[in-house]
């Protein structure tokens, strides 16, 4: 099990799959293995938040996780494995930056979320339609430019008007917790590691207050 965990931290997807095969053949429960990998990826996310891991290491770990989850998929389905929640993510209208958003999506997938990624420069109409269709547990919005911060505010307002129960997280270089509060977003996350943590908190809050 330690070797599995270390393969995620090291970003070695092939090794993760090898260890998973071994552990499954030894009778380990797939959910237990998934939880172990999630735990390792969270560790990398925390190191990333603290500035002890960088984009290449974070990407590598998240990709190794993807490979591992890909291998575990069928075992989880047969054992009734389930995503912990649905997260919809988008870069706001007018903004085409996606590296930060993609990193958040990767890490959230690695943390057990089903992620619906709407892409970049997502229009308000597309966002609202997709939200209505998908009914995610959490919506994450990203912006890199100061010129698209007003679009983030508009997106939060429109979603909240149509879906007052919506839980919205925001992030991106110029975004601050003050700005998040000012535009009515529920949470701010400064990086991908923090985003995973915050999404789990929001999910827990939601499950303890279903209405």
């Amino acid at each position, binding site marked *: 099990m330690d070797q599995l965990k270390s393969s995620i931290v090291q970003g070695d997807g092939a090794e993760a799959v090898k260890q998973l095969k071994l552990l499954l053949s030894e009778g380990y429960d797939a959910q237990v293995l998934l939880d172990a990998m999630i735990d390792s990826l969270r560790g990398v996310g925390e190191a990333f938040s603290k500035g002890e891991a960088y*984009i290449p290491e974070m990407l*590598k770990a998240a990709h190794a996780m993807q490979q591992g989850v890909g291998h575990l998929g069928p075992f989880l389905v047969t054992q009734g494995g389930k995503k912990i929640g649905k997260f919809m993510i988008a870069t706001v209208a*007018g903004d*085409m930056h996606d*590296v930060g958003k993609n990193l958040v999506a990767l890490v959230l997938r690695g943390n057990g979320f089903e992620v619906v990624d709407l892409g970049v420069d997502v*229009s308000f109409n597309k966002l609202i339609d997709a939200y209505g269709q998908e009914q995610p547990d959490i919506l994450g919005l990203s912006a890199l430019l*100061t010129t698209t911060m007003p679009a983030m505010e508009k997106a939060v307002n429109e979603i909240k008007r149509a879906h007052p129960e919506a839980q919205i997280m925001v992030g991106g270089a110029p975004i601050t917790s003050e700005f998040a509060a000012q535009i009515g977003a529920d949470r701010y996350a400064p990086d991908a590691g923090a985003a995973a943590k915050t999404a789990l908190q929001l999910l827990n809050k939601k499950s303890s207050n279903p209405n």
Partner: protein
Amino acid sequence: MNSKERVIAALNHEEPDRVPLDLGGWVTTISVIAYNNILKQLGKDREVGFFDWLRQNADPEEEILQILGVDTRYVHVGKPRSWKFAPEERENGSWVLDEWGCGFIKTPSTLYYNLIDSPLKEATLADLDDYPWPDPRDPGYLDGLAERAKKLDEENQYAVIGNFAWETWYERAWKLRGMEKFYLDMAMNREFIHALLDKTLNLHLEYLDHVLSACGEYLDVIIQGGDFGGQKTTLMSPEDYQEFIKPRQEKTVELIRRKTKAKIFWHSCGAISTLIPHFIDVGIDIVNPVQVRAAGMEAKRLKRDFGHNICFWGGIDSQQVLPTGKCADVESEVRHVIREMAPGGGLVICAVHNIQADVPPENVLCLYDSVKRWGNYPLSKDL
């Protein structure tokens, strides 16, 4: 003391008569929207078009540079013969294939062109040799170049800046590969990243040799760069910086030193305070844009730790103060940067990166007026 002397003194870590001002370079200019707003604010009955198609930036006119009190003048390369800006209107926006084969799009909701297609995203090492690389010695680059530089040099009024980033070998490399793939490869396919950076670096050095042979002798400063920082940390680890980037910065500096006496300006956005000692080590003279809102980039700290060995160029916050502040906030930011960074020279002021479309014209005028008001040496005790 004229503008040229002012800039040179500051870059020699001496106190000139006032803190020099810049506007007009690759990463120190202004969006065409913001520029036209200034023209309107100043009562000028005209609008200009873009100069830099990618970022939709303006090339500020001489009249406006004089009104603002800008101490620098730029020399830009001419248009390449082998490539033309030819936007193609498609369903989702205007597409441009640049001279490197990268695809860019400007959708109806975006203010400039963004990378949409990276031609080397699936490439292997072997593909690099067959790729149709652009000609770094395109004769078009020299059109008007030496004449403009020589004229500015003879006039001896303003600091002459060579705007020769050519989008830089580092930016080119990730644009060709795609940013996410590039950084993943930095962890998993290191040999490829080395080979790709070697390609873009060697082309860049050829380009520099080409343009500096024409005008190197007239320059006071040359613009180079590559973004290595995010909001909180560097994008890559210190070890990766030292393996992938520093030796290539050394080669860049080495070539420039052979061709010109100009001071070397390096642009890198973000939280790069941990890299500045390396910049100093390789011989970079000036760091830009001094992104003061990024972690570890506080003006006071940078000046204290590195101010004796490197100059700062930029410094006026564009992530909050310029777009959302009032004139009083801009003035207060200018005073702060002057107080912390101007003592002993070593400071040229402009916005942190190009002034974006959302910056009110009053704030731009206020930035330049405030430096003229508060930037005079000896520095005021009331700063």
